[in-house]
Every structure is written in C-alpha cells, then in structure tokens.
C-alpha cells in the first residue's frame, strides 16, 4: 500500500523531471549532472564533517608541536617539548589516576546493570515501573544531577539524614578529602549512567527467543544455568560495547566533577585539566598535546576491543 501511495504522489508533479525518464542515449550534460547528484547531497554533511571533526584533529596535531597561546599571531615550533612535559610533570599526569576511580565505578555499574537486566527480563511485578525508575537518571540534565548530589553529600544533607535515621551520626565532609570526594563523584556517575547499560542489556536479553528458556526449563536448568548458557552468550556484543564505552567514558569524565567540585580536592580529570590549560592559562600548545594523548589512548582502546571482539555488524558498504 505505501508503494502505490508514494508513486501516485510522485507522478502528480511531472514538471520536476529535467531529464528523460528512459536513460538510453544520455547526453553529456545529463551524464555530468547524474555524476554530480550524490555530491550535491553530500556537500553539507561532508563540509560539516571536515570543518568540525577532521580540521580540528589536524590543527590539534599541528598546535601540539608549538608553544601557541591561542591568541597571539606568533607561534614557534618547539618539537615534542609539550609531550615531554605531559609525561614528566607528575601533576599533569596524575589526572589519569582519577580516571581509575571512574573505571572501577564502571565495573560496578556494568555488574549492577547486568543483575537488574537479568532480574527484570523475567516476569516481575511492577516491571515497567522499575525499568523506568532505573533508566530515568540517564535522561536528567547533568547540571541538575550535580546540584541534586551536592545537596545529597552536603553537611546535614540527604546522605547524612538517611544515616542519622539508621542511627549513624556522621560528621565527615563527603567531598572534603581526595579519596572520599572521588568515590562520591564516581558513585554519582554510576547513579547517572547505570540506566543506559541496563536498558542495553535488557534489550539484548529480550531479543533472545523465549523458546530457548522453555527448552532449558524442561531440561531442568535453573536460573543460574539459564544465565550462564543462554543469556551470557546472547549479550556478549552489547557487553563488549559497554566495556569500551566505559573505558573511553572514564578517561573523558567532565561534567559531574566540574559542576560539583570544579576539580578541587584532587578530583580534577583529564578533560578539566585540558580545558583549564587551553582556556584559562592560554596554553593551547600544551593542551593540544594533552588532547592528542587522550585521543590516541581512546583509539588504542577501541582498536584492542575490535581485535578481541570482531564486530561483524560494523559493515557499512
């Protein structure tokens, strides 16, 4: 039905037909026009792609070998000095250790998401309610989440009040020391992103045909065996995708720590540091080198993942 409908629609304005309908002896101009057509469609997408993805990467590489400050017309080539500085000045390099907290948090996050997805793939009462509640944080604005949890961790805030309810009077400043602050911020990140992992896992589990479970149940397989031999293999591609997203996400954390602590008390991440270097201290050259390092790490991680789990779905042509 849609076929007849659309052809009718097209057939009505015959004025929009600059070339002959039967492509037999096509004249030169028509052939040229036909060659040009795909490029007309691609002009805008390609222009944007080059302007905002490839040109920045190229420029960034070039800046990283200079001492440019981002504003003055003068810049001089200084070789690999910026890279040497990143790897030798400990305070520049230690931001990578902060990523460790977020990496550990993502492991917890994936485990929890897997648990809840498995549980909710079976028939549970109020399933849709639980699904919605677990997913909703992922949709919330990052600044709003930052404020919600600033109040949560505040002196006498939500967390302290809940602890007082169960009889534990705490007087510690949750965001006061480096370790405590990083753990708190990483937990916020779990709270925020768990929902996406969970929904991805749930979708993968639910796409497993139901007969498999029935057959397994007839054979006397319990829940654990169903998970081990039916669910786990079925979600392997999504699991590997989640791991890669977690790693590159942990390396490029920005919003939560920037909004909540501004990078104070040892919570500065790589992206916060790079932004500060570039836009506060006007060290565009050094910041570019830092960004190149991060880009290379993320590309390397992606490459390793592609090697380990060959993804046959990434076939575009």
């Amino acid at each position, binding site marked *: 039905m*849609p*076929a007849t409908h*659309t*052809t009718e*629609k*097209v*057939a009505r304005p015959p004025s*929009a037909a*600059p*070339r002959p*309908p039967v492509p037999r002896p096509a004249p030169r101009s028509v052939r040229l026009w036909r060659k040009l*057509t*795909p*490029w007309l*469609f*691609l002009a805008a*997408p390609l222009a*944007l*792609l080059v302007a905002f*993805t490839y040109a*920045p*990467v190229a420029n*960034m590489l070039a*800046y990283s070998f200079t001492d440019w400050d981002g504003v003055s017309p003068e810049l001089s080539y200084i070789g690999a000095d910026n890279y040497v500085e990143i790897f030798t000045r400990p305070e520049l390099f230690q931001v990578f250790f902060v990523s460790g907290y977020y990496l550990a948090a993502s492991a917890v996050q994936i485990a929890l998401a897997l*648990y*809840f997805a498995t*549980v909710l793939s079976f028939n549970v009462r109020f399933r849709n*309610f639980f699904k*919605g509640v677990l997913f*909703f944080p*992922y*949709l919330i*604005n*990052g*600044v*709003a989440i930052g*404020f*919600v*949890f600033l*109040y949560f961790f505040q002196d*006498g805030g*939500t967390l302290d*009040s809940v602890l007082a309810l169960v009889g534990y009077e705490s007087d510690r400043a949750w965001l006061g020391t480096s370790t405590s602050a990083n753990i708190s911020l990483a937990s916020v990140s779990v709270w925020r992103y768990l929902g996406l992992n969970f*929904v991805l896992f749930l979708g993968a589990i639910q796409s497993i045909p139901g007969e498999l479970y029935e057959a397994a149940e007839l054979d006397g397989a319990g*829940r654990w065996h169903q998970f081990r031999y039916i669910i786990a293999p079925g979600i392997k591609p999504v699991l590997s995708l989640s791991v890669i*997203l977690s790693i*590159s996400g942990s390396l490029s954390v*920005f*919003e939560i720590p920037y*909004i909540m602590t501004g990078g104070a008390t040892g919570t500065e991440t790589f992206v916060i540091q790079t*932004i500060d270097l*570039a*836009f506060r201290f006007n060290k*565009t050259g050094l910041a570019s080198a830092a*960004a190149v390092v*991060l*880009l290379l790490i*993320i590309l390397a991680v992606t490459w390793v993942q592609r090697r380990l789990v060959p993804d046959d779905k990434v076939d*575009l*042509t």
Partner: protein
Amino acid sequence: MTLAHPTPVVRRRVARTLTHLSLVVASVVVLLPLAVVFLTSLKSEREMAKGSRALGLPDDLLNFRNYATAFQDGEMLAAFGNTAFILLFAVTGTVVIGSMAAYAIDRFTFRFRKLVVALFLVATLVPGVTTQVATFQIVDSFGMFDSLWAPIALYMGTDIVSIYIFLQFVRSIPISLDEAARLDGANAFTIYRKIIFPLLKPAIATVVIVKGITVYNDFYIPFLYMPSEDLGVISTSLFRFKGPYAAHWETISAGTVLVILPTLIVFLALQRFIYNGFMRGATK
C-alpha cells in the same frame, strides 16, 4: 520444612522476595535524592535558616515562591527560549543532513564512495571532548563564537550516529520504489523528498528524541562557546545559580526541579520510543 532442608517452593519464594527487595532498594536510591530536592524546593527561606532537616516535609506543601524566584531572577525563561531555538535548528538540521547523507551513500555508486564511508566511520571514533581545544579556533574563525549558531553548527556537524540510524532505514526501503518513481520522471531530489524522506519516519522519530534529549542536557558546548549571560541555555543558566544562591538551597532546588520536569514529562509520554531510540543510538 526445616531451615536446613528448605523445599524448592520455599527457596523460590525466598529468592523472589530478595529479588524484589533489591529492586525496591535500587528504586529508593534513585528516587530519594530527587525527592529530597523536590521537598527542599517547597521550603521557605526561613524554614531553611531554622535548620530544617533534609528529609523533613515543608511547612506549606504549596509554597511555589522559590519557583518564581528561580524563574525571574535566574533568567530561566530566557534560558528555555534559547534552548528551544537551538533545539529547533539543531534537530531539524541533523535530520535533514543525516537523511541526505544516508540517501547519497546508499542509493548512488560514485567515485570515492568508499572513502566517504570511511571518513564517516573513522569520525565516530574521535570523541568530541578531546578536540574542543582546536574546534574552538575554527568556530571562532567562522565568527560564531558567543552566538547561538556555534552550538547549532556543532550539534549538526558532529552527529554521525544519526547518519548510521538513517542509513539502516534507507537500506530497508526497496529500491524498486525509486525505480518506479524514476520511470514516472522523478529526479533524485524528488525521490528523496517524496519517497525516501516520508518513509524514514521511524528513524526521524528516533533521531529527534535522542538528539533532542542530548541537546537539552548538554552543558559542555554551550558552556565553552556561549559565555554571555543572555545566551544562557538551561544547563548554563542553572549552573550560574551556584554563585548568587550558593547558600540558598531552596532556590537552587527549585531551578533544578524546573530543569528536570520537562524531561520527566517527555519520558512518561514517550517511554517506549525513548528506550528504543537510545538502544539504537548506542549500538550503532
């Protein structure tokens, strides 16, 4: 029925109870921080100064004065206006650009087609946060810095995921439709506009939802590219509450609730589309 040898029925019941318990605990962990902020937004300045406990109920459950303050002094109205403007252009642009690129890649054979596909493919690997240092210079050289066009151009230009979503859908449209139209004298643009684009509706819905929520929530790009106060979008305007209202949690809470509320409404109304949309967006 002793504890040492529970029957399968008992064991199953215990397991089910524990499962439910874990779900309830998770729900409390998700909802409690949000609920407390909502309660705080209804408390008066005096109540807060007296040291109202975080979990305590406000004296007046219908005290919406903080919302008025947040709306007027926090310039939230202008922020919602700016966000709506950016949303309209960025989402429309993404849909048009993504569907055009997908149509060209799937329906034409031309020289360098493989190269074009590879360019789009490799670009997905470059995370936007890393390149902002250099993107900034380019945006600045276009004269778009500190204008609403900077985020619009960036949102349109860096969304390769939606091109993928469109590509999948274009591929599922039978080519015989194109051919029939061509025989009727339609040219490539007519085919795109009258056949491909209307049949892409499910993909368009997905892209509009995913892109819309991403743009609404983005903080990084508006924060970097639009420092002017009158160009605040909801993220940056809410962020500015931190200064003047530092000790006024009731006002900050009201602003926070104002920002979350539209998301909640959209989520409740479009739940099914949103789950599918984000699943498609992430796995492609």
